[in-house]
């Protein structure tokens, strides 16, 4: 058998003629059934690829008088410690910026109003400087010196209390962001008038989200979300390669989502008249006060702002809410880096030009 092996192969080759080594798969050609047999499994594969389990870990904690939820891409073992470290940072910020905590930087600033400058932490300087900037661009619609008014109305503290008009008018001169002196080089803050109070409630949460993201990134997390109540900053992408899918709460139907939007490396914040409010004599009083009139702003049901920085969207959501639907949308459209969604007082939804087609309504 061995001897005539090559001869045997040759004869075999001849017998099989030229297609001996033709690849058989090609010979079967691509008629419809065979093509289908190839394509269908590939399609199934593609569809199934959406069902992949994403390694996302989420943790919540009661901080900053609300719930902070941090989401990070990674397994629990990988990311839980990083998330806890981020919570500690946010807790540190809370201890600096809470107006209710005795001895906090903000508390010391308020207590020294009209008396003298107070040396405060760098973070507090950053936030107050940014707040003044935002007050400037919104023409005072956002103003952290709202403190005395907030205290008078006492949302969340007093029960359904409507202050006397005289009391409100007396406080209005104290509400002026230009009366905050910030000395960045000395890290000092001074409220020029006696009785002034700053309230960082409309901006500190956004700053906390920014700082949170910074910590997560520095500690090696590739993608995630820091949500300080509704002030949300995202970075990176979901493990499945998609952008983070963020819902926006419906201002009147609490169980519903108004719309959703996909975000990568940007922030979103919503201010609504539904968060804290009461209805008395058929009038609705919400917790967002207009610094000019001293009464709750009534132009919108909710305002959602989307931009890069958390601190900016947090403050602007409040500021645009105070501006009202028309002026608010004008403001949003005049800034290229800012987008927004406004639900006006009748419940009509207005979307800024840069978001059209990106949100489903």
């Amino acid at each position: 058998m061995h001897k005539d092996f090559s001869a045997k192969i040759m004869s075999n080759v001849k017998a099989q003629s030229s297609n001996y080594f033709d690849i058989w798969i090609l010979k079967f050609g691509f008629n419809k059934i065979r093509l289908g047999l190839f394509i269908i499994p590939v399609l199934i594969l593609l569809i199934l690829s959406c069902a992949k389990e994403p390694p996302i870990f989420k943790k919540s904690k009661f901080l900053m008088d609300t719930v902070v939820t941090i989401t990070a891409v990674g397994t629990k073992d990988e990311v839980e410690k990083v998330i806890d470290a981020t919570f500690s940072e946010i807790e540190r910020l809370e201890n600096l910026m809470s107006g209710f905590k005795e001895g906090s930087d903000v508390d010391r600033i308020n207590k020294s109003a009209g008396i003298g400058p107070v040396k405060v932490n760098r973070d507090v300087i950053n936030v107050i400087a940014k707040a003044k900037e935002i007050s400037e661009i919104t023409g005072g619609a956002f103003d952290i010196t709202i403190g005395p008014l907030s205290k008078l109305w006492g949302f969340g503290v007093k029960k359904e209390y409507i202050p006397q008009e005289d009391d409100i008018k007396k406080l209005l001169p104290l509400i002026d962001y230009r009366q905050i002196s910030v000395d960045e080089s000395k890290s000092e803050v001074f409220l020029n008038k006696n009785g002034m109070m700053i309230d960082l409630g409309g901006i500190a949460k956004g700053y906390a989200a920014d700082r949170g993201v910074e910590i997560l990134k520095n500690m090696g997390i590739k993608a995630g979300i820091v949500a300080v109540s509704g002030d949300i900053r995202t970075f990176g992408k979901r493990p499945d390669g998609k952008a983070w899918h963020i819902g926006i709460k419906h201002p009147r139907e609490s169980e519903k989502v108004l719309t959703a939007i996909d975000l990568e490396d940007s922030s979103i914040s919503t201010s609504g008249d539904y968060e804290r409010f009461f209805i008395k004599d058929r009038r609705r009083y919400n917790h967002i006060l207009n610094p000019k009139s001293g009464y709750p702003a009534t132009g919108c049901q909710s305002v959602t702002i989307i931009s890069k920085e958390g601190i900016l969207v947090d403050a602007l959501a409040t500021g645009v809410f105070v501006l009202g639907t028309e002026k608010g949308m004008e403001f949003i459209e005049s800034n290229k880096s800012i987008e927004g969604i406004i639900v006006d007082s009748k419940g009509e939804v207005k979307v800024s030009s840069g978001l059209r087609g990106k949100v489903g309504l």
Partner: protein
Amino acid sequence: MGFKDIIKAMTFGDKVLILLLSVITVLSFYYVKVIFPEGAEASIEIEGKARGSYLLAEDRMIEINGSLGTAKIEIKGGKIRVIRAPCRDKICMKEGWISKAGESLICLPNKVMVYITGEARYDAISW
């Protein structure tokens, strides 16, 4: 030799095997549903610490002690809600029933959080 011939060449054993494996696959769907009930579990946390997980399939009342006082939570018909809260605003009670993965009821003063486990439709909600 065409496609039809190949199908014809399938043996009795093949057919039994396909049937058997299909049955196993269908059963595995059922089995997975049993060990991982879909979105059907609520977790309760007090001050960030897990208090327990409850199947929404079983109607029951749960009393929990938050940092402010006792809250009463009801599970009924696959949904969960807070029916008594010690706080003043009662925001968690006004929220009503929740049942979908990712939804939550939060009582800030009492530091109690109730949420439905499972993969949520949204990664976060802005409010």
